[in-house]
C-alpha cells in the first residue's frame, strides 16, 4: 500500500506532463459526470420517445384489429400521402401558423409598447397582460366558443347593436377559421408582449435622450433604436410561438371540434383522433413524425437566421 503510493508520487515528480495529461482526462471525466444526469434525463424523456415514435411508424399497430404489430415499412407514409384529410389538416395547420404568428407579433408588440409607457400604476397593465397568458388554452377555447355562438354569443349581440345582422360563425369554414385565428391571437399575443416587454426594458433610456437631442422623431426612434435592439427578443418569441402554432390543438378542438366537416381540423387534432379515438398507433405515429419534422425544420431555419444576423 505504502510502496504503491510512493511509486505514484515518484512518477508524478519525474513526469510532470503525464500528470497534466491525467488532469486533462479527469477534467473531461468530470464534465461527463456532471452532464450525465441531464443527458440521461433527456434521452429518457425526449430521445427515446422520439426514436420509439419513428420505430412505431413503420408498423401496422391498431388496438382495434386484435392483431399483433406487423412491420410494414413505409406503408403508413404511403397511406398518408393518399389521405385527403392529412393534407387538409396539414394545410390548416400551416395557415393557422402563417396568420396567427405575425398577428400575435403585431398585437404583442403594440401591447408591450403600451405596457412600457410610464403609467403611474404599472400593475393593472401588467396584470391584464398576464391574464390571457395564464388562462389554460382549453378554457380560452370554450370561452370564445360561447362568444362566437350564433344565438347566445356576445359577438353577434354587439354586431346586432350596430345594426349588422349576426352570422353563424361555425357554419362556414372561413368564418370558423377566422374566429379560431382571432382567439389564438388574443391568447398568444400576451406571451409575445411579455418577452418583448422584457427586451424593451433592457434598452437604455439614454439612447432615446440622445436621439431627442439629435432631433429624431418618435417614429424614427422606434425604427432606428427600439426595433434593432429588440431583434433578439423578437426572434426568441417567434421561435416559441411558431412551434406552438404548429402544434395548435386545444382552441380549435374546443371551438369547432374541427367542423364544419373537417374544415378547421389541425394536424395535432388528426394525430389525437387517430391515436386516442381510433387506436391506430402505427398511422398516428407516422403523422406525429411528420409534425416533428415540420417543427424541426422551422427551428433550424430560425436558428440559421439568428446566426447570420450575428
Amino acid at each position, binding site marked *: 500500500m505504502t510502496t504503491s503510493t510512493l511509486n505514484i508520487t515518484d512518477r508524478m515528480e519525474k513526469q510532470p506532463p503525464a500528470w497534466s495529461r491525467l488532469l486533462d482526462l479527469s477534467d473531461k471525466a468530470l464534465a461527463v459526470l456532471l452532464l450525465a444526469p441531464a443527458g440521461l434525463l433527456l434521452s429518457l424523456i425526449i430521445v427515446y420517445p422520439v426514436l420509439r415514435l419513428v420505430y412505431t411508424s413503420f408498423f401496422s399497430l391498431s388496438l*382495434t384489429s386484435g392483431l399483433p404489430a406487423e412491420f410494414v415499412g413505409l406503408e403508413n407514409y404511403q397511406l398518408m400521402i393518399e389521405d385527403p384529410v392529412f393534407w387538409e389538416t396539414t394545410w390548416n395547420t400551416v395557415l393557422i401558423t402563417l396568420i396567427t404568428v405575425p398577428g400575435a407579433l403585431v398585437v404583442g408588440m403594440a401591447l408591450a409598447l403600451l405596457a412600457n409607457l410610464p403609467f403611474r400604476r404599472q400593475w393593472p397593465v401588467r396584470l391584464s397582460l398576464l391574464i390571457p397568458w395564464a388562462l389554460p388554452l382549453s378554457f380560452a377555447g370554450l370561452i370564445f366558443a360561447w362568444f362566437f355562438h350564433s344565438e347566445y354569443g356576445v359577438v353577434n349581440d354587439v354586431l346586432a347593436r350596430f345594426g349588422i345582422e349576426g352570422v353563424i360563425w361555425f*357554419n362556414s*369554414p372561413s368564418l370558423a377559421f377566422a374566429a379560431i385565428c382571432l382567439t389564438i391571437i388574443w391568447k398568444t399575443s400576451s406571451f409575445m408582449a411579455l418577452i418583448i416587454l422584457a427586451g424593451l426594458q433592457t434598452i437604455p433610456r439614454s439612447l432615446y435622450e440622445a436621439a431627442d437631442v439629435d432631433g429624431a422623431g418618435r417614429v424614427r426612434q422606434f425604427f432606428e433604436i427600439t426595433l434593432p435592439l429588440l431583434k433578439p427578443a423578437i426572434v426568441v418569441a417567434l421561435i416559441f410561438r411558431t412551434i406552438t402554432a404548429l402544434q395548435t390543438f386545444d382552441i380549435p378542438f374546443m371551438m369547432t371540434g374541427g*367542423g*364544419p*366537416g373537417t*374544415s378547421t381540423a389541425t394536424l395535432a387534432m388528426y394525430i389525437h383522433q387517430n391515436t386516442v379515438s*381510433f*387506436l391506430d398507433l402505427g398511422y398516428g405515429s407516422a403523422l406525429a413524425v411528420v409534425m416533428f419534422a415540420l417543427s424541426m425544420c422551422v427551428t433550424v431555419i430560425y436558428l440559421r437566421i439568428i446566426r447570420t444576423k450575428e
Partner: protein
Amino acid sequence: MHKSVMVGALLSASIFGLAAPAFADTELKVYISSQHQPQVWRQVLDKFEAANPGTKVTIETGGNTSEAQAQYLNTIMSAKDASLDVLILDVIRPAQFAAAGWTSPFEGKDMSVYLPAYAEANTVDGKVVALPAFADSMFLYYRKDLLEKYGIQPPKTWDELKAAVKKINGGENNPDLQGLSFQGKAIEGAVCTFLLPYWSQGKNLVDNGKLTFDKTAAVNSLKLWKSFVDEGVSKKNIAEVATDDTRKEFQAGNVVFAVNWSYAWAQSQGKDSAVVGKVGVTRLPAVAGGEQATCLGGWEWGVSAYSKNQDAAKKLVSFLSSQEASKHMAVNGSLLPTYSPLYQDADVLKAAPWFADAKQVVETAKPRPVTPRYNEVSEVIRTTVNAVLAGVTTPEDGAAQIEARLKRILR
C-alpha cells in the same frame, strides 16, 4: 326522511372514500358516465353490497358524452390499468372492446332473457362480452297541445311532419318556435341522424361485416335533412345542435317536434320544464313509401380484462343486468328495461306510462354497424352530416365521401 338521510350519508361517505368497513375484503370500482344518473345506480349498488357482505363497490364518474367517455376509457384500457373493474359501455362499443381484448367474456350465460337486440349487441363471435344495462332508442317527441289545437295527427312520414310544421307555424306566427330539432353537430347522435332516413328506405349500411352502401339512399337521406334547414322547418344553425341542445330547446317550449332518446322524457316532465303534460312520444316518421325506422341505443356492463377481482366483478355485473335492477332503473331513472315483461309491469307503467308503447319501438330499432373500427365509421358519417347541414358540402358529394372513406375502413 330517515331513509334519505341514510342514503345521503352513504353517498357522501363513498365520495370521500371513508366508508370502507373493516370487514371489506373485496373492493370493486364501477365506471359510470356522469349523464347516466350515477346516484340512481348507487341505490342498486347498495342492494348488492347488502346481499354480499365483504364486497364494497365505489363509483367513478367521468365524460358526459359517449365520445368523451370512449376517449377516457381508451386511454385507461390501452395502458392496461387495473383500477376499474366494471365499465358502462355505449351499445356500439362491445365489439371494439372485445377485439382489443379489454373485456372478459361471460361463460354459459343465457342471453335469451333479454330483448333480442341486446342479446345480439353483446355477443361477439359467439362469446358474451358484456351484459345489458338499459335499453334505448330514438323517438319523435311532439307538442300534444299544438297538434291538438290544429287538429293534426302525429306524422307518420317526414313529409307529413313538414306539412304539420307549416300549418302550425302559419297559425302561431311565432319566429322563436322551431318546427323540428335534431342533431346536426358532429357528434355520435349525427350518425343516427344520417341512418334514420337511410334505413327507412329499406337499405342497410353493413351486412356481415361487408359494406352494403346504397348511394342513392344516402343522397336522399342527406337531402331530406338539408331540406328541413332550407325550408325553415329547422333553424339555420342546426349544425351546432347536439343531443342535449335538442332536449333543452324542446323543454323550453321552443320546438314542435324533436328527435331524441328516451332520457329526454324525465326532464320534460320535471320542474324546470315549460311543457309538463304537453308532450307526446311516438315512433319516428318514415320517408314516403318507406318503413318507420329508428336507431338502437342503450348501454352495457363489461368486466375489465385487467380487473384483479374477475369473479366478484362478474357477480356484480350479473346483478346490475338482472330484472330486479332493470326494474329499479325503469321506475327511478326512467331508463327503458332490457326485459320484455317489464314493459307491462304496473310499477314501471305508473312511473312512465308511454313505456307501454316503447317496447315495440325498441324491438324494431336497428343497430348501428357492428365493427371494431366503429369509431372511424362514426367519424366519417358524423363529420359529413355536419358539413352537409352547414352547407359546406352538397348531399351528392357528401354521400360520395362517405362511400369512399367507409370502403377504406371496412375493406
